[in-house]
């Protein structure tokens, strides 16, 4: 007789595909044999986790179709099960799995699309509070703005790809345009954000991406601006900065302690 600890370990092994004789002999069989009864749970675990991944990576599924996605998801699930029960937080390793998944090698952009889906999923779960507003900045003298170091807000992620993943993302929407997209349309830089009541992304130009990257690396606003100008001498700093602040891309400033 299996004690509860051994029974749960054996059941866990069964769920990921191992046929355990000790488990099957612990289950009552009749006209429906024990092994058949156990398979209900194995099928359910695989199918429900694949559904959860499809819901987190809807663009990937739309690109490859449900059948292909299921196969790719099953291969991931047997390798990496959720470590906790919140399924919206399951799938961090899936983009790397897509990148390494042989049958998807003909779609070189697919892993970057998976990264975009994951970043959107994280943004959706991020709080909308604690964001820097332009009122916060208006109180600061221009000279002091130069030295300010801004962090991206929780849920804000910069995604860079050599492929036009913003256009691919739109084409994969249920109501997406039918016109073909050429991979020659080149690289994309997207800033994924938690909006007021949704997640979304901004498409950035190369200098804008350089600006965000510099801030992300701990650079000051002056340093970030210089990175952007180095990339594009005609960079429109005012418009970009206004757009990023209006989009609530940055975390609120950390106030220093009131005590002296």
């Amino acid at each position, binding site marked *: 007789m299996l004690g509860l600890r051994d029974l749960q370990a054996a059941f866990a092994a069964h769920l990921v595909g191992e046929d355990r004789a000790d488990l099957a002999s612990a289950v009552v069989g009749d006209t429906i044999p024990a092994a*058949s*009864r156990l*398979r*209900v749970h194995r*099928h359910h675990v*695989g*199918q*429900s986790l694949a*559904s*959860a991944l499809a*819901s987190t990576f809807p663009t990937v599924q*739309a*690109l*490859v*179709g449900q*059948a*292909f996605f*299921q*196969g790719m998801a*099953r291969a991931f699930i047997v390798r990496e099960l959720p470590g906790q*029960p919140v399924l*919206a937080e*399951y799938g961090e390793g899936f983009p790397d799995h897509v990148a390494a998944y042989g*049958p998807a*090698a*003909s*779609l070189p*952009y*697919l892993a970057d699309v998976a990264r975009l889906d994951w970043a959107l999923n994280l943004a*959706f779960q991020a709080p909308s509070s604690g964001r820097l507003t*332009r009122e916060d900045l208006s109180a600061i003298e*221009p000279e002091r*703005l*130069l030295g300010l170091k801004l962090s991206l807000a929780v849920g804000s992620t910069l995604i860079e790809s050599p492929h036009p993943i*913003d256009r*691919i*993302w739109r*084409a*994969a929407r249920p109501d997406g345009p*039918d016109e*073909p*997209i*050429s*991979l020659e349309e080149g690289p994309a830089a997207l800033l994924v954000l938690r*909006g007021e009541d*949704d*997640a*979304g992304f*901004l498409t950035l130009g190369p200098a804008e991406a350089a600006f965000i990257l510099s801030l992300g690396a701990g650079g000051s606003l*002056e340093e970030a*601006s210089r990175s952007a*100008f180095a990339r594009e001498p*005609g960079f429109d*700093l*005012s418009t970009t*900065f*206004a757009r990023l*602040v*209006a*989009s609530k891309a940055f975390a609120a400033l950390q106030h220093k302690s009131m005590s002296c």
Partner: protein
Amino acid sequence: MSHTRLAIASALAAALVLPVATSHAQGNMEKCYGIAKAGKNDCQTAHSSCAGTSKKDAQPDAWISVPKGACEKIIGGKLTPS
């Protein structure tokens, strides 16, 4: 064009006085889900079409190597290993 500290400071400060409507229009975020985004922990109960006692796994055979979906709109890249 040279970018003096003063020019950068002025450009940053100018961003904070652009009309709100302008900066919002320029924000122009592509929205993605709406609040109807599926709650994934509703997948707890079995889907009848797949949960069952069958010896075959519920996954179809046809998936093996052919993606079939919106990827057909994307041209370029290496479509077949050569």
